[in-house]
């Protein structure tokens, strides 16, 4: 069995990122889309931790903390927007809302 290297982590991270991206691009349910964004952010975190470990530096972990904080904020605001949208449009389907033009 090969030893687990940084590249493994990076591959895993990339895979998770692509899964999240697919979720963002294809799902109609906005709640799921928000979850997919969490996946993407976690993929980034895996990346940061892997390099932090490899370089023996604590900076990566610090950035991971910031990213987690960011994710919390994003989730809070995103879910708030979702509630506002559901209240006004009676829908949670992303492709039924096309306000983002003109």
């Amino acid at each position, binding site marked *: 069995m090969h030893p687990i290297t940084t590249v493994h982590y990076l591959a895993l991270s990339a895979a998770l990122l692509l899964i999240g*991206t697919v979720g963002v*691009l*294809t799902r109609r349910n906005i709640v799921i*889309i928000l979850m997919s964004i969490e996946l993407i952010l976690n993929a980034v975190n895996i990346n940061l931790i892997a390099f932090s470990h490899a370089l023996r530096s604590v900076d990566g972990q610090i950035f991971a903390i910031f990213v987690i904080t960011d994710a919390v904020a994003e989730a809070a605001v995103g879910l708030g927007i979702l509630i506002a949208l559901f209240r006004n449009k009676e829908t949670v389907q992303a492709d039924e*809302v*096309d*306000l*983002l*033009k*003109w």
Partner: protein
Amino acid sequence: MVTVNWLDQIWLIPLFPLAGAALMLGFGKWLDPQPVSDVAVAPDLALDPHPHGLNAHGRLKFLISLLCPGTVLLSFLLSVGAVWELSTVPQRMHQVIQFSWVAGLPFHTASGRIAMFQADWGFLLDPLSSVMILVVTGVGFLIHVYSVGYMAHDNGYYRFFGYLNLFVFFMLMLVLANNYALLFVGWEGVGLCSYLLIGFYFHKKSAADAGKKAFVMNRVGDAGFILGMLLMLQVLGTVRFTGVHAALAGFQSESGGFGVLSAMALLLFIGATGKSAQFPLYTWLPDAMEGPTPVSALIHAATMVTAGVYMVARSAALFHLTPDTSTIVAVVGAFTAIFAASIALVQNDIKRVLAYSTVSQLGYMFLALGVGAYWVAVFHLFTHAFFKALLFLCSGSVIHAMGGEQDMRRMGALKNKIPITHWTMWVGSVAIAGIPGLAGFFSKDEILWQSYQRSGILWIVGFVTAGLTAFYMWRLMNLTFYGQSRVAPEKEAHIQESPAVMTIPLSILALGSILAGWLGTPKLWNLGESFRAFETWLEPAFPKVEAAKHAASTEWLLMALSVAVAFAGIGVARYFYTIRTEIPDRLGAAFQPLYTTLYRKWYVDEIYDFLFVNGLGKGGGRVCGAFDRNIVDGGVNGAGWLTRFTSTLSIWWDTWIIDGAVRFGSFFVKMLSFPVCLLQTGRVQAYAFFVVIGILAFFGYYVTR
């Protein structure tokens, strides 16, 4: 001894009457409150005794009576001082220029020079204007005093004196001006005052109409004056008298033909015919008798109507160079003299006779001007001012005594009832008739002699006119004062002599009518230099006219003839109207057409009515109406149509071209943006997809590298 430089103070002379006028017209209503209304009443009503006597109003009125003649008296005294000082100045001329009221406007004169159109507020005292200011202020003062008595019971007392003072101001401006432009200011000002005073009883339609008539006829003449002045400006480049004289020195006499100077002189003369009531613009003067009698005396006999004579005399240098125009002046003057005298023969209104007499005497003056005897014209102006003012004031006194009656057929035998008026008027009539020793004789005889030197026909016309003058004046005297009384019985008892405030001016004027002529006795009499003072005094003002050579015996003969015709006129008049009173009626019946023609004043008014009032007025009205309907309205309608047409064009252009361009632009942009619009779906995921495509491309760049 305080030395006053009188000559430099001549600008003050007109200011006193102006101050009086301003005071009267501004505050007079307060000084002389009208009990009922400010409407002046007709003389016959006004002559009733004042119901309130001398109350508070009366005392304030007394103030007016002191103030207004006082201002004129002050002017007179200043004038006397100035003239006395002028006689010590060698060049006999003094000019005071205060400022220029028409600032310099540069222009090209006819000769191509650049000149400035500039008019001074300046005063010129020379022998000519000195005579005029003495007449205006002296006679004016006496008439003011007379008016205090004559107008005592009239409403609008303050208004009358305000206008009268204003008139004196403008008249003094006229005669003291040092340029034609300022002279014209005075000229128009006296015209205005004349209008105001003729229409003084403005509630009477005839008076208001007469005022309008005077004003309009004067405008005809004034148009000529303005054109003449502008021509003068164009040709000579200045309107100042001294400048005009200097410029005229460069011109030759236009004896060969009618040139530009002749036209200039003729235009000025047209102005003079309007103001001085010469044919054909004389008809306003008889109608002007609608005004109060002192006004007739001051404005329409002594001063204003002589403004034309003054103006032509002032332009003597110009007329001297233009023999053609001078001939026209002489002919018009002579014709007017005999024409007006013929009308005066048969008029029954006492003031109208005097009015036509004035026109006739003014004709004499123009005759003198036309034959180049400028000083004689001014001399006649001078003497005429005395005896004609006297005659008018006497007629006013008669009318006053008769309670407003002006028709001589209802007078007669007034000699003993109003003796002072009779004797003063007798003096005036003798003077105008040309009896030796009185003023009229000297001036009129000099005119006849001078015109004889130029042309026999002119002398004959003047000679006949002299006879007619004597006749109609003594017809007036006989009808009024002698013979049988034809006065209505109820008026007979009220006839009484006028108060002293009226009779004293009459006496002074009568004295003047006797003495004034002795300043210009004929050369023939050889009485010494002081008896020829008038000619020598005026000599510097006028160009020299070489006298034709005639035998002294001819002059003696002509003098004797004119005296004879005067006596003849007086005698015939006395015979006709006192001794054999039926003769005039018989003559009138025998020469019915002639009598009627004379009585209707040669139908001139009717002709003017036909030609101008009806012909030009109504015909012009029709033409103007047609013009208005067709051309003016057509223009308006056409403009409307054109506006609508252009607006239609504008709408079409706007709709299709402007809007079309805008719409095409937007359409074009829309077409271009259409594919891009398809990308903008408004869905978040689509945009995210584009991001992924971008990442793909970005990575692809590194993969293929």
